[in-house]
């Protein structure tokens, strides 16, 4: 059985950054495993720009951003396997994978970094009444067809859900000659970045129907028509129906961390993030297995994925070098207004000089205050003009501010 110090599962933005950073921190035997025919992950189909402003201080497209990391990884001589599917990860840190050349193989790692990313919620998740014709796809699938393979999946398109991929695809399909008739969002606010509402919808006069959903699908073998209704909460309101003749319906209704392998390895999952429960070092509930990027929680910017994955790569390297300190930790708890906080646990002995907590709010807020409590005492207050679930927030705390905390840090939005 081959032995590695660190095995990284998934060669997208998270896996690339984690593998590179672990290697830079003195770990020689790193293996990156990717199931696709090349490294880079979903960035390769995200041909739009807006990537890299934080990491490279310039604006890149997805493929450009990926290529820089792929080149760096190759220049460093880090071993990687393509066309290779990890089939099982075990708590003893053996990894089973399969590919056409080697067959079924088991290897032993000292540490594992999980970077499998996320998957799109699909039609089956939302039970739209009506038929099940062809022409209903997730926005990411339509994006791959268009940007990688060159197929436009429809000429008259409607988009359900205002997640960023849906908004990006509204513009992309318009540029390629399709008519995008509208975007319906169940919530009273958009699920995507405001920037994308402006430059993908408003620029092309594509209407955004907030508090609306697709209430019926019509069509035998092919999609012919959809009915869109205003909703009261989740329930369509009778009498508000609008009909759209369409040949494609794209779904941009959420992303879910891809944790099948993690759960099979016995790793505990956070109900809120759908990612692993991790500590300040991005180590999961199974010692020596780390998680970062969209497999941990869904990010809105790849730059944040890279930053997080670099921290996880450094931490995994420390683990190999026996530099991670075991011991007492306190928890992080979301209170009113906060949907989740990552990481879930903090051992202050493993922090350099500061702790950065990442979180999402549960609704849109204007002119509010975020309060941070340590063991029930207010330790930090931040004024916020605008908070939205689509935009990840963070709190930086100096070690000196949190050195006395025993039980928990709690965060709330004060209206």
């Amino acid at each position, binding site marked *: 059985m081959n032995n590695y110090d660190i095995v990284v599962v998934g060669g997208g933005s998270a896996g690339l950054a984690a593998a590179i950073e672990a290697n830079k921190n003195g770990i020689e035997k790193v293996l990156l495993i990717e199931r696709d025919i090349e490294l880079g992950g979903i960035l390769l189909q995200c*041909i739009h*720009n807006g990537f890299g402003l934080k990491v490279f201080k310039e604006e890149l497209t*997805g*493929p450009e951003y990926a290529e820089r990391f792929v080149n760096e990884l190759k220049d460093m001589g880090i071993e990687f396997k393509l066309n290779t599917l990890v089939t099982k990860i075990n708590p003893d840190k053996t990894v089973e994978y399969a590919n056409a050349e080697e067959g079924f193989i088991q290897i032993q790692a000292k540490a594992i970094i999980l970077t499998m990313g996320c998957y799109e919620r699909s039609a089956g998740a939302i039970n739209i009444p009506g038929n099940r014709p062809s022409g209903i796809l997730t926005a990411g699938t339509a994006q791959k067809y*268009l940007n*990688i393979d*060159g197929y436009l999946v429809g000429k008259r398109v409607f988009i359900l859900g205002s997640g960023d991929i849906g908004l990006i695809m509204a513009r*992309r399909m318009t*540029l390629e000659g399709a008519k995008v008739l509208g975007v319906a969002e169940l919530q009273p606010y958009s699920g995507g*970045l405001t920037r994308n509402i402006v430059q993908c919808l408003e620029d092309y006069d594509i209407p955004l129907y907030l508090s609306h959903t697709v209430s019926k699908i019509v069509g035998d073998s092919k999609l012919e028509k959809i009915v869109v209704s205003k909703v009261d909460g989740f329930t369509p309101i009778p009498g508000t129906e609008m009909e759209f003749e369409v040949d494609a319906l794209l779904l941009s209704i959420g992303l879910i961390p891809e944790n099948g392998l993690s759960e099979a390895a016995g790793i505990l999952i956070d109900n809120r993030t759908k990612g692993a429960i991790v500590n300040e070092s991005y180590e999961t509930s199974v010692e020596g297995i780390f998680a970062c990027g969209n497999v941990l929680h869904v990010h809105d910017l790849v730059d944040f994925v890279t930053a997080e994955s670099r921290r996880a790569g450094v931490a995994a390297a420390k683990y190999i070098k026996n530099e991670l300190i075991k011991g007492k930790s306190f928890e992080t708890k979301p209170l009113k207004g906060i949907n989740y906080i990552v990481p879930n646990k903090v051992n202050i002995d493993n922090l350099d000089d500061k702790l950065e907590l990442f979180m999402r709010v549960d609704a849109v807020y204007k002119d509010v205050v975020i309060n941070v409590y340590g063991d029930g005492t207010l330790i930090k207050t931040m004024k916020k003009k605008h908070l939205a679930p689509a935009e990840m927030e963070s709190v930086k705390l100096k070690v000196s501010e949190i050195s006395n905390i025993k039980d928990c840090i709690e965060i709330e939005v004060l209206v």
Partner: protein
Amino acid sequence: MKKSMICIVCPIGCHLEVESSSDEFVVTGNQCKRGPVYAQKELTSPTRPITSTVKIENAIYNRLPIKTSGEVPKAKIMDVMKEINKLSFKAPIKCGDVLLKNVLNTGVDIIASRSL
């Protein structure tokens, strides 16, 4: 004139307040110096970058992603797309290769955004 707008220069999306008169623009709410520049340009002559794909042969995929080297006037986006869709290349192409110079006299080039 007072106007609220969202800066789209980067994904942060600052909420800008613009107060403009005939001789000056006063912008607040921006987190960086690109905000005021964007606001003024957006209200006078809006431009956008374009990203798309072009045909490529002898590569692992059929499409090569491209971008414009700079921003083109918003009104010319569809015309530039027509020019982009006329292009066809054979691999190998390097990321950054100029595929078409000065598209429709905009002063902007079409550039490969990956190696293929």
